[in-house]
């Protein structure tokens, strides 16, 4: 079972913390909203991903078990 990232775009207001803490997987678009460059989090980055999830002020970044089939 792998861990996948997902953004709740309604909750996200573009603080950009996630891209600071997890630049390997998250970049920001021209308006400052996150773009996931990979759904599945590589194993060495899992701790960083958890930190990014905790740091999101609006709880918009989600780390989930599974295939990442949901958008």
């Amino acid at each position, binding site marked *: 079972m792998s861990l996948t990232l997902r953004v*709740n*775009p*309604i909750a996200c207001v573009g603080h950009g913390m996630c891209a600071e803490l997890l630049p390997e997987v998250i970049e920001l678009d021209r*308006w400052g909203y996150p773009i996931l460059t990979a759904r599945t989090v590589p194993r060495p980055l899992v701790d960083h991903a958890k930190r990014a999830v905790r740091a999101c002020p609006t709880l918009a970044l989600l780390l989930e078990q599974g295939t990442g089939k949901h958008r």
Partner: protein
Amino acid sequence: MAGRRGRAGEHPVTTMALVPRSPRGARSPAAQNLAPARFRPPGPGVPRLLAGIGGLPPGLEGHQLRYGPMPVRGLARGRPGRLIDLAEASGLTGRGGAGFPTGRKMRSVAAGPGSKVVVANGAEGEPASRKDRLLLTRLPHLVLDGIALAAEAVGASEAYLCVHGSQDSLLHSLDRAVLERQAADLDPVRIEVVGLPHRYVSSEQSSIVQFLNGGPAVPTFSPPRPHERGVNGNPTLVHNVETLAHLALIARFGDRWFRRAGLPSAPGTTLVTVSGAVRNPGVYEIELGTSAGQVVALADGPTEPLQALLIGGYFGAWLPVSAAWPVPMTHAGLKAAGGALGAGIVIALPASCCPIAETARVIRYLAEETAGQCGPCVFGLPALADALAQLAFSGGASGSDGSSGPDRGRSLAEIAALIRVVEGRGACRHPDGATQLARSMLRAFPADALRHERQGPCHGVARPPLLPLPGDEERDWDFR
């Protein structure tokens, strides 16, 4: 070709029977003399749904004369899920745009925990669609039958029929129809008619669910999806009103009857709304698999030479007329051609119109209709609309003089980049619908797009807008 005429709202609506290709569509002379076809299936071909329009007493009485009594308690005797089996065997798919198998959706709601809810979606947010309004104004009891039957089948204790709240006369006529049924003790559940705020995104299914739960009519983050946790947290079956009308016929005449129209892979009939440069715009019932060209012919053909069809509405796609003509009107057929069936909207674009300007106007409208929740949609769609307006009306230069400058020739690249950055990043399909339309414009009209970028607007931009938009009369389309 037998024709029946009706009116839906302010728009003329013509309903006609088309019997394409299939010799099974022919009726014997004896059968034609039986009018109304009491308790008989409305023929193997078309019209089916629209067979009930005209020639009979209005209201419940005429409806029952035409289609026979609703078999709700008869079907339920023994096993309430019988209709779900029929729906699955019929191959009926959702007629609201997504085309999800109806029976499968019903089964997953029926299998969910606790009490269930049925929601009929008649909000019809697409500005160029009239089919749901036609059904609700002319054949309300067919839709209400479908709601009652679906509620019985999934074991629902609540049912709602949602329409746009700005349509006062429609709300009243539906309330009257529901009361008529209550007086006849017809329905197993109480059906409540609900008016939604008039916005494009209100008709999205999660918007409706949130509104019925007391919130704003804007989409929510999913999962959970409505069939898992919807109204009051209960599994909720959301069906388009046309889907429910088909279900009402399947309950009466069976899955094999349903499959006698359309294709084996896409059975049945569907309603399409045809507009643009055609002689007789209106709502038509076709067998699935009828070609797009035949649909234009049904509307008595083009009024002037055509260059393209917009199929599927404003979440649909442009197809050049030569490519579009033979395409079968099915989800799979249109997808293979780079388009989408959506809710069955066909708009014929004459050669004298500018497809770039038409697209720019619609994307501006869609940008204004964002729910304002997701950043990529809130910022991305207006940026896309700006870039398209730039291309359409100023010819690709972003300088205020619109004639020259270092940015000339960059708007096409900008449009492509914006499409990529917006797509798939909203909570609902709103941004994706808009980008699909913009992308199809680039694909269908590459020469026009290049010409605009290099040489400025074409003559077509001076034509009045063809594609209908709500509130068009107050709009300034800043033609420069």
